């Protein structure tokens, strides 16, 4: 894990992208069991068809969890103070998600040095699936 400090991190700095393996049915099945999001729309193709979809699709929280995992790659988890996302578009089977982060602000809050990040989860074709942000404390 890279060790960023308040001084070393620059506003407008783009952190190194973090990319996941393409999502497959196993990914969705395991995340359903592990996360408790067992909505059949994500794991049962017959249910998905009946609901009018071509196929199952990813839980939004899987992609948020991926962004969270990228955050813990960039920063120690206990330094993450806030993390939020907007679910923009459905992530489909075989999408390959890349997590991106850009520093938008450095500031002090309650005597602690922090950075605000703008986050995105996008596919190989640059389709934006999630947008979001985080606030991290920095040494």
């Amino acid at each position, binding site marked *: 894990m890279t060790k960023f400090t308040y001084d070393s991190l620059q506003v407008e700095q783009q952190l190194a992208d973090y990319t*996941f393996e393409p999502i497959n049915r196993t990914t969705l099945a*395991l995340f359903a069991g*592990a996360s408790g999001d067992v909505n059949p729309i994500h794991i049962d193709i017959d249910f998905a068809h009946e609901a009018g979809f071509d196929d199952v699709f990813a839980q939004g*929280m899987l992609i948020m969890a*991926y962004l969270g995992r990228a955050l*813990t790659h960039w920063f120690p988890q206990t330094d993450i103070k806030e993390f939020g996302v907007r679910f923009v578009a459905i992530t489909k089977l075989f999408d390959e998600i890349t997590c991106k982060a850009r520093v938008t602000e450095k500031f002090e809050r309650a005597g602690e040095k922090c950075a605000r990040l703008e986050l995105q989860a996008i596919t190989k074709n640059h389709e934006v699936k999630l947008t979001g942000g985080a606030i991290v404390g920095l040494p």
Partner: protein
Amino acid sequence: MVDISHIGKEWNIPPAPVEAGRIRFFSKAIGETDPVYYDDEAARAAGYRGLLAPPTYAMTLEIDQLDPIQMLSGIDIDISTILHGEQKFKYHLPICAGDVISSVVCVKDVYDKKKGAMTFVEVNTSLYNQDKQLVVEAMRIIIVMNNKVNNQ
């Protein structure tokens, strides 16, 4: 149209243990690799009481204890008509395996958007540990697609 009289409705989730095996399963499912998510000794060496729960795990703790389908039908929403619009977490303290977490889930606001095509439902959850410390605050926006509701 979601009834605005549901604003203020609360569910109290009684204490439930945070389980190490489930944290390992969840961590593996999302590609975490750090030993603090898998190995008790590594977690303790890093200063945690037990395995560290990853950043979005608070949602799992909530849905394990409060079935989303039941919760939504308690405010007259059918799960087949909704989208998850937003999700946010504010972190105060780590959640670790061995902790016992209780929560309060509350409907904060209900409002229409796009001339009534959608209804936004804001749900807040406060999670507390065994020492009654506030550990995580979660906020989500559930979007009800009213055309789907009307088509039922």
